[in-house]
């Protein structure tokens, strides 16, 4: 086999050492550190991006919590305002209703007073008319009439009918 008897074996091995040595030297001092730095840069960039994303998420979460709190607060405030407005309106409506009632009852009272004066007037007029009618009837029947007796009799009769 040429692998065991070739005259060039030794020089081949010497050249192997030279070439492999140079290969190792160039790789270890120039080429591989460059590749390593690219990979490290990428790893650093990725972890930085992840860190930034995590920070952004935290910020977003905080903002969301803040928003929720603000919403709850606004809702509570709105509800309080609504309740206050409702109470206010109720109170106002009640006051107005009371004022209206008072005014109406006053008017009713006044009307009743007017009615009773009118009735009283009518009642007293009834007395006069009845007295005159009775006097005329009595004088037609018996020729004369005692005005005082007739008047008292009419008054009694009116009173007994409960004209009030």
């Amino acid at each position, binding site marked *: 086999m040429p*692998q065991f008897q070739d005259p060039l074996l030794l020089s081949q091995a010497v050249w192997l050492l030279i070439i492999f040595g140079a290969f190792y030297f160039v790789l270890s001092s120039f080429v591989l550190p460059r590749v390593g730095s690219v990979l490290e840069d990428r790893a650093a960039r990725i972890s930085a991006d992840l860190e930034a994303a995590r920070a952004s998420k935290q910020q977003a979460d905080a903002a969301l919590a803040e928003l929720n709190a603000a919403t709850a607060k606004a809702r509570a405030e709105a509800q309080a305002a609504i309740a206050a407005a409702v109470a206010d309106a109720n109170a106002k409506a009640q006051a107005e209703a009371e004022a209206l009632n008072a005014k109406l009852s006053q008017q009713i009272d006044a009307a009743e007073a007017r009615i009773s004066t009118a009735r009283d007037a009518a009642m007293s007029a009834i007395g006069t008319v009845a007295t005159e009618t009775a006097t005329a009837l009595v004088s037609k029947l018996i020729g004369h009439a005692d005005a005082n007796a007739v008047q008292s009799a009419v008054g009694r009769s009116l009173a007994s009918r409960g004209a009030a």
Partner: protein
Amino acid sequence: MAAEGKAIDALSQFELNTTLGPLGASVNFTQSNLHMLYAVIIVLALMTIGMGARALVPGRLQGLAESAYEFIMGMVVEQVGEEGKRYFPFVFALFMFVLLGNVLGLLPYAFTYTSHIVVTFGLAAIVIITVTGVALARHGWHFFGYFFPEGAPLWLAPIIIPVEVVSYLSRPLSLSIRLFANMVAGHVMLKVFATFVVMLAGLGVVGPVLSLLPLSLNVALMGFELLVAFLQAYVFAILTCIYLHDAVHLH
């Protein structure tokens, strides 16, 4: 072993010749060494041109360069541990040198420098000297405790120590012979079947039909040899890592 006339000549492919004209001849620079240079130039070109862009998102060439880097780095870290990163360039150089030697040899007219025991033994010697140097530098005289495990009965020392020494010294042999034998066997088989193709093709009418058989066998062998080329480079590199692990941790 090269024989008469029409016989199969499977071994002349391993003969060394000087190359690069009279200059190469004056320094005994062989075609084997020229292929070493090709391998070195291809690897360095891949790793420098591929990484030239330093792109954040790698393209194809940069992806290839980075996969090679991360493949070997992963192997070193897994086998040796974090301290092994110092020896990563060494393992990377070995793996790439062996892989390119094996793969380049599969191209027509190319020479397979890993089919020479001188080359594989040279590489194995570099490995074993480096590993022993690392072990001595890290552990000093404790390194020799490696040959006599702690807790073994003292009267066994005359047996254990020679066994351990022989097993340590056989490492470069097994490392170099494994690669050498695989490469030689593969290329001899390829050559033998290729010769069959030519010989059968000359056998009259049926010859060309019959020659299809060794031809298809050679096609399959080519794929198999590609696998072996990668596998042997991987084995060479991972054994180096295991030896480095022993040197760094001493068992």
